[in-house]
């Protein structure tokens, strides 16, 4: 079991090992957030347990279009900062189209963060094979700190959901999850995700989710 650390706890005396969730002062490494300590010989980091989603470059996120401007779209990415998707970064945009014909207010998109400037202006792109506008399926919102749990170790949890239910799932780093497929199976997947989010103690969670899905699938076939 990894231990829980609080802000200000001394983690190491070698500043070279400082990783995410830590800070260095006077050559010493301290924790800066509440989280689980992950310590190896070459690195020390703190996996946060709480907190809002803070964008970082390369993240796939799910966002909602909030505003249309002449240069692009303002996108809410469930974070303290809004994202901006410039017209040039959307391959669907053609010279003969107006921006609101391509993406309108309240449209949901899967998008990628390509740049964050020092003032935390977040630039998005749709030029990625994962990226698309969502026209069907369902979006589920969870606490962003729980995203790694939904993905599981090396993607085990998400693989389980996909293979057992035959649904398509894309997990945004910002806590929004897109599910698409058979409506009844999407219902089960949604419930399973909420269970994963709520059950703090993950010991044997994968097994419990497997059992839950089996049970719910049995109910479906029984009808």
């Amino acid at each position: 079991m990894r231990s829980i650390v609080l802000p200000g706890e001394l983690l190491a005396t070698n500043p070279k090992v400082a990783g995410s969730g830590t800070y260095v002062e006077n050559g010493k490494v301290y924790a800066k957030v509440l989280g689980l300590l992950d310590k190896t010989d070459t690195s020390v980091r703190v996996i946060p347990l709480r907190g809002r989603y803070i964008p970082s470059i390369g993240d796939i996120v799910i966002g909602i279009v909030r505003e249309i401007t002449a240069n692009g779209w303002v996108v809410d990415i469930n974070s303290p900062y809004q994202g901006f998707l410039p017209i040039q970064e959307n391959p669907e945009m053609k010279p003969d189209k107006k921006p609101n014909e391509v993406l309108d207010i309240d449209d949901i998109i899967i998008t990628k963060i390509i740049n964050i400037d020092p003032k935390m202006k977040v630039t998005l792109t749709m030029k990625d094979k994962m990226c698309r506008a969502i026209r069907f399926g369902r979006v589920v919102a969870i606490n962003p700190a729980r995203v790694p749990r939904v993905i599981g170790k090396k993607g085990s949890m998400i693989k389980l959901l996909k293979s057992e239910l035959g649904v398509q799932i894309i997990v945004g780093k910002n806590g929004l999850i897109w599910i698409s497929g058979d409506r009844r199976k999407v219902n089960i997947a949604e419930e399973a995700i909420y269970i994963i989010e709520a059950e703090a103690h993950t010991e044997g969670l994968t097994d419990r989710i497997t059992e839950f899905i089996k049970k719910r699938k049995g109910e479906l076939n029984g009808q």
Partner: protein
Amino acid sequence: MASEDVKRLKGEIKLIVDGKRLDGRAFDELRPIKIEAGVLKRADGSCYLEMGKNKVVAAVYGPREVHPRHLQDPIKAVVRYRYNMAPFSVEERKRPGPDRRSIEISKVSREALEAVIMKELFPRCGIDVFVEVLQADAGSRTACLNAASVALVDAGVPMRGMISSVAVAKVEGHLVLDPTKEEDFYGEADIPFAFFIRNDKIESIALLQMDGRVTKSELMEALQMAKKGALEIYRMQKEAIKSRYIIEEADENE
């Protein structure tokens, strides 16, 4: 004025009897403290705290967008702190709304927390801390700061360390830790402290106020006394947060 108050002013009722205080505590003993983290569902972080008869609840929201926009700071987050007393928190009903005292407490408490919050990580954002006093005794500002510090950790806000706060009063010539209302009213001085604590060590003073009359050496002695009390509170704050998360094992993840 009630007759008991008059007697106290005349010195007929003693606040210290046989080296013990009215509530039976030693001079350097804290009141009973209870801390619980994560009590509010809709806040990003929260804490309920009791310090003697004080009952306070703190809520943290953020980092989030600042409205109105002109309050935004392009290079760091703004911290907002509101200390508020419920009308029923004191013996005589308090008119709701901010008054001079609570505006002052909010300001000094905010400055104390700004010493530990890593504001530079969240440009253009705001971190809002709301603390409500549900029942007041002496030292409610120190209780609120202790609660706010726990709530900030619970919210996952990056911080350099934690804030622990306690007051020292001078009563009938003796310095006493964590005074009660009687000791605050009829004592000679009241000195609230807050410290920036990191890795079980006091790093610096984050808040220091005083009113009353003390000598230079008494003030230094009060500081030592407060440090000892603050470290004790710090341990309880840590315990409160850890006990909430001890069941969590994210080992399976990633």
